[in-house]
């Protein structure tokens, strides 16, 4: 057919911050993507299955034409947040931004500029998101940067204290050897954290493994599980203590491993047995805190203590609480006590991702580093509550839906409206872009070339060709900054006179000739897979800790960490009761990732929007107590704001807990109520002792919405 002759099949991957990198094929005709497919002719093997994309990747072609696509540079003509813009030329936009940057440097100094990047485009080596903007600002001057991580801060802290650093987890493929898999606040079926994680778990189960899900919500991952154990959010360290108590008292602790590979168990053991406080951490004790029956805790502990190999897989949700450090630490301790460290099919509750990313070049930063940092979760406070000196007067936001992604979205929107000038780079008119003075139209993944690395669970290298003609006047982040650098007098330093194609040549040759990637193969296949035999984390350390010590003081995994006391935390991973805020707002709110978005990315794509109604999940008991019936619209509210959404009355969530998926776009009505359903309207900016996000330490009340 004539049509077929003009359709090209071009491989690509996403740069979404989803947790995976998959293989996609764009069917391209006349510069447009008419279909997205999976590569043909690849076969699955047990440990090296194909990287089949999810709905998000499949929607990338449609995303280009989504309703809220920014097609031209735009200047605000109304109050910030009103969404009223006028189209301007690229020249006017760039000139105005350059003038503003010159002006702020002269009047307040470069640190008056808040440079914020986000998860809209990550792992691109050159032309997308923070790689392009960080290079620009590091050449321009010392700005105010952001610090802290919204994802896994407490898990990273626990890994640093106990393991000496972010030890990579085992490859997901090792799960097929597991006899028992515990998904602890982990939801691979919806988050897709790690390609094929759910597929490996299903394979293990078909080989006879038992799978247990611990979660306040009966997630889609429950379909892969033999048992669901609902847990009160924030009490995971109490459950861990209850399990550890049984391991200790039933003589199921792997004494050999603990004596040779673990330091500092004794203080935790004394805590478990109640030798200091007179309160043994029995399953009954844990039941009172977690809401899990003591008998269930005992059975779970006996199963975990007597089944090898057993993989304890913590998600990151549990540690996104006020004492998330204790939870992350307790789960590492539990894996140590059971001896499931360094063995195939076992699992250490670490940060979980690989650190050995493939050697490939990327844009490098210039001489300046940020003069100061604001915390990524509470940056708004540095504008609203305790203004810095000199104050932040300008925000430059790249690939980040900053107000939506950070807790207390209404405060964030207020903070941006306080500033003199806000620039946003985004393919879409996000709630953050609506707060901008100038919005610049940016290419989506399909519209720009880049080298892309695996998200973190694998070590593959991807090459995205420019596949589609950019929509409207969309440009890459790199192009914009090259133009601005030219206007500000450091164009050559920024571009080194290279085109994007020339940069890619440089990226492919990171070692100056010693390790050159096969460009022709990358062009053809879009990927070079680097996975070999599945790798088990810490296997050498387990076998010979003296020869392969960890970078801790003892060289062992340390269950007692004196450094914790510097942050007001106990030296052992004990449970800390969260002071009850639930007097006026009695329901605990969880805000999980949603399977049809990557955070707030792809929100505006109709294909994805119609797959499921955004709603407040509430148990029938809680709904009945509030006169809420199926189909009602409800308001979830607390002291920070109100979100109005349909109620999803479901047995799949535990009583006392409600759920709103994160990432829906903030859309306040005249009355200030958010009808978009942005969960962060409700979440707290409180931080854990070491600075972790505590979004899951949020209480709300829910009421029927009057029509």
């Amino acid at each position, binding site marked *: 057919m004539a049509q077929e002759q003009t359709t090209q099949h071009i491989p690509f991957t996403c740069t979404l911050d989803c947790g995976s990198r998959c293989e996609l094929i764009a069917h391209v005709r006349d510069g447009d993507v*008419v*279909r*997205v*497919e*999976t590569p*043909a002719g690849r076969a*699955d093997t047990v440990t090296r*299955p194909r990287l*089949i*994309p*999810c*709905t998000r990747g*499949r*929607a990338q*072609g449609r995303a280009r034409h989504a309703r809220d696509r920014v097609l031209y540079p735009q200047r605000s003509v109304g109050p910030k947040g009103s969404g009223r813009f006028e189209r301007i030329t690229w020249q006017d936009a760039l000139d105005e931004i350059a003038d503003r940057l010159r002006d702020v440097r002269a009047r307040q100094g470069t640190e008056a500029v808040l440079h914020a990047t986000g998860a809209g485009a990550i792992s691109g080596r050159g032309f997308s998101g923070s790689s392009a903007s960080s290079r620009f600002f590091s050449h321009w001057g010392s700005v105010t940067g952001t610090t802290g991580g919204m994802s896994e801060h407490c898990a990273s802290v626990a890994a640093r204290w106990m393991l000496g650093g972010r030890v990579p987890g085992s490859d997901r493929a090792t799960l097929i050897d597991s006899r028992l898999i515990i998904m602890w606040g982990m939801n691979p*079926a*919806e988050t897709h954290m790690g390609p*094929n994680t*759910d*597929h490996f778990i*299903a394979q293990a*189960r*078909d080989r006879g493994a*038992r799978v*247990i899900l611990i979660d306040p919500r*009966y997630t*889609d*991952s*429950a*379909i*892969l599980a*033999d*048992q*669901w*154990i*609902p847990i009160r959010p924030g009490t995971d360290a109490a459950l861990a203590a209850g399990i550890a108590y049984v391991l200790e008292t039933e003589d199921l602790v792997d004494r050999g491993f603990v004596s040779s590979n673990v330091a500092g168990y004794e203080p935790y053991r004394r805590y478990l047995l109640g030798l200091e406080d007179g309160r043994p951490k029995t399953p009954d004790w844990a039941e009172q805190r977690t809401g899990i*029956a003591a*008998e*269930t805790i005992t*059975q*779970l502990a006996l*199963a975990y203590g007597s089944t090898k190999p057993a993989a304890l897989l913590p998600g990151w949700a549990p540690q996104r609480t006020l004492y998330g450090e204790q939870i992350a630490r307790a789960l590492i301790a539990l894996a140590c006590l059971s001896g499931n460290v360094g063995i195939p099919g076992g699992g250490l509750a670490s940060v979980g991702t690989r650190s050995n990313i493939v050697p490939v070049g990327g844009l490098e930063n210039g001489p300046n580093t940020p003069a100061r940092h604001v915390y990524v979760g509470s940056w708004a406070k540095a504008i609203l509550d305790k203004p810095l000196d000199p104050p932040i007067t300008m925000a430059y936001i790249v690939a980040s839906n900053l107000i939506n992604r950070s807790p207390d979205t209404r405060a964030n929107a207020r903070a941006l409206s306080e500033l003199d000038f806000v620039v946003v780079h985004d393919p879409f008119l996000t709630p953050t872009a609506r707060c901008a003075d100038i919005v610049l139209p940016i290419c989506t993944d399909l519209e720009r070339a880049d080298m892309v690395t695996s998200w973190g669970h694998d070590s593959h290298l991807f090459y995205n060709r420019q596949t589609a003609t950019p929509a409207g006047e969309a440009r890459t982040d790199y192009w914009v900054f090259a133009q601005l650098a030219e206007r500000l007098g450091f164009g050559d330093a920024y571009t080194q006179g290279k085109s994007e194609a020339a940069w890619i040549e440089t990226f492919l040759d990171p070692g100056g000739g010693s390790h050159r990637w096969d460009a022709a193969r990358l062009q053809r296949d879009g990927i070079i897979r680097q996975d070999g035999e599945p790798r088990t984390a810490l296997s050498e350390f387990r076998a010979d800790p003296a020869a392969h010590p960890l970078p801790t003081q003892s060289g062992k995994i340390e269950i007692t960490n004196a450094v914790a006391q510097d942050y007001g935390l106990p030296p052992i991973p004990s449970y800390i009761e969260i002071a009850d805020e639930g007097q006026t707002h009695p329901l605990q709110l969880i805000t999980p990732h949603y*399977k*049809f978005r990557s955070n707030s990315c792809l929100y505006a794509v*109709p*294909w994805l929007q*119609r*797959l499921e109604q955004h709603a407040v999940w509430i*148990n*029938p*008991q809680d709904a009945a107590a509030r006169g809420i019936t199926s189909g009602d619209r409800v308001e979830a509210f607390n002291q920070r704001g109100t979100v109005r959404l349909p109620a999803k009355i*479901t*047995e*799949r969530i*535990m*009583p006392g807990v409600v759920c709103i998926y994160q990432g829906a776009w903030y859309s306040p009505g005249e009355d200030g109520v958010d009808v978009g359903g942005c969960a962060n309207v409700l979440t707290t900016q409180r931080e854990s002792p070491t600075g972790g996000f505590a979004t899951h330490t949020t209480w709300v009340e829910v009421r029927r919405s009057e029509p």
Partner: protein
Amino acid sequence: MIDRVFTIDLARCTGCQACSIACKDRANLPDDLDWLRVEPQEAGAYPHPTLVYRVTHCFHCADPACIAVCPVTAIVKHENGLVQIDAELCVGCEACVGACPFGTIVMLPQGVAAKCDGCADEIAEGRDPACVRACPMRALAYGPAENSIPAQRVLDQDFDGHGIGPAVRYLRRQIPTRDQCVGP
């Protein structure tokens, strides 16, 4: 007649919708129409709820209800086993839409009935249907009906419409025995 069957593993399907999007993409359907649906079925009471995602599309039945009601013989079961609607012959009466017990026939904006065509063109070239290729959980398959069922699965007969011989096998996991469970 080639005897092929769609196999849908309910123990693996986690409702990711990759198949429904892949189908819609291939068929170039309007945003609000689907040839393949993935619908959650929730049952049970806390703390023992159940959840199954039911994948439904045209099952190219042995004795198709749609063919029986079509007044203009626009629907034909072909030698390859696939039931096809001829858009040229369809008069848009919607009789087939109401007759299909699986609700898999939709009306296109141009006023003709349409449904899963079994990816006939792709099958002819030796590929799996688009939905099967799209499944990240490897929960879907299309192949000879005599292919055996995996050891850990049993046929799930808990759906309506058996009488017309749908070419589908829903599989579910064998109920775990009591001693495989933790706790009460």
